[in-house]
């Protein structure tokens, strides 16, 4: 049963459900990740050491350069990839990468989505309705 819903202004991709991995921090596939192991490796990142594989990443904003546009596609090809991306704000690179890599994405909420979603909560990403839901 759904308990809380959050509406996103920007949405792309398929409906997915899974556990949320949450932090008020940025995201760059090149800067922050060991993409072979599927973990955050940037020492200053709040999720350092944690696996993002099969998790719905709930973060603040896109950071860094343009490489993420290719890297999400490459990560998807190996199955070492987040289940979906949910951000307060994104840049074009993340949107371009999600489109090529077939990674569902929501962005742009009326509140800080990283404060609204408990880490580890089960959530549903529904880009067709532009809604993120916390599941019981």
């Amino acid at each position, binding site marked *: 049963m759904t308990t809380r819903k959050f509406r996103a202004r*920007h*949405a*792309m991709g398929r409906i997915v459900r899974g556990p949320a991995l949450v932090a008020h921090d*940025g995201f760059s596939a*090149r*800067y*922050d*990740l060991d993409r072979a192991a599927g973990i955050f*490796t*940037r*020492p*200053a*990142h709040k999720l350092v050491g944690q696996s993002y594989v099969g998790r719905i990443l709930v973060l603040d*904003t*896109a*950071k*860094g*350069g*343009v*490489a*993420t*546009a*290719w*890297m999400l*596609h*490459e990560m*998807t*090809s*190996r199955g070492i990839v987040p289940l979906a991306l949910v951000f307060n*704000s*994104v*840049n*074009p*690179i993340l*949107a*371009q*990468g999600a*489109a*090529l890599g077939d990674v569902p*994405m929501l962005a742009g909420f009326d509140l800080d989505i990283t404060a609204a979603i408990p880490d580890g909560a089960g959530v549903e990403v529904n880009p067709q309705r532009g809604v993120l839901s916390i599941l019981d």
Partner: protein
Amino acid sequence: MKLNDEEQDILGGKFGALPQLALQHQIQVGEFFGAADFVPVAQAHIMADTESLGEAGVRWLERLATTTDGQRQVRIPTITDPRGTDFAKADFLGHTKTMLDLERRAIVAFVTLGVTMTDTCINYQTIQAPMPNEHAAFGDTGVVIFSNSVCAARSNFEGGPSALAAGLTGRTPRYGFHLAEQRRATLHVHVDFTPGTLNEWGALGAVIGRIAGNYWAVPVIEGIVDTPRSDQLKHFGAAMASFGSTAMFHIVGHTPEARQLSDVASGDLPRHRVTRAAIEELQRSYLGDKRVDVVVFSAPQLSLYELRDLAQICAGRRFTVPLLAVTSPQVKPDCDRMGYTARIEEAGGTVLAGMCFYQSYAREIAEAKGWHRLATNSAKLVNILGGYGYRPMLASMEACVDAAVSGTLT
């Protein structure tokens, strides 16, 4: 998105599968950001090093390149960002046959698609700077922020797939920095000093990038006294884009869209003040163990003037740790011809071309060469390399060269 007749034809497949696929991708991105329509672009620039592409990305390119029907090549000048290696120095870098084979396959695919392999992230210094109000589809965040801010051109960050799509269709979705309203300042930064060295300009860009914090923020900066040089704004912009994902800045009295503050700002903007202490603190934050394993000048690629300065500092020195200087394939022949390469390499350094250190399997280089403690004058590079297993340190070009001699950054 509203499509004109030609775009309807592209989407309907009249020009073949390649532009059709490209436009479908562009519509997906454009609609995500609420673009009303497309805007024609004059040139495109593709970031596509094979570390980012991986096997999957290269196969994707190869599939595009084997298309036989309709339009098979890009419609507008479409150039490339640095590659994943310098083939002439691949052994020195520890690049494997697998890496080089992947790189060669990517190059063949790009050439088949009509892409011009310039392999540079300083095309605004070496190939052709965009004109004011020229719409472009540039990859490499450093290229975009320089083109928007210093050249008054109009580009969003275009990742490799989207830049290639723009090359194939000759247009890009009209959103973000293609729109006049997105180019106005959203925060005001007063700087009470004018940086001198390139690492100081980079550190200032880093501090302002952190304050700006996201792609849609546009800082307007006051307090810069002397007219900045191209290389200074290159490091300033590249660092700001790297630390903040920022795509545009204004410097009042110096950049073309901000002759005065009121040209780009109205009402009360959030105000910030940046002092010299802030950039000193940023540089100090990267200093740990001062011993260095390698010195790298890269990110962005060095201009001829930077290499001239470096050659002068290197003359007569003898390095105890490796020193790498990375430039573009356009600058390298002049660097050779002027004797700069010889002066740097006689001291024990290596001049590389057509790659950029962080785009060239930096993690694998660290493992192959045992390089971890790295000194550089590039704020952008220190920001990136932390995630690649390095301990990067930011210092002046002179201090970095001294470190290459003594093995210690002082």
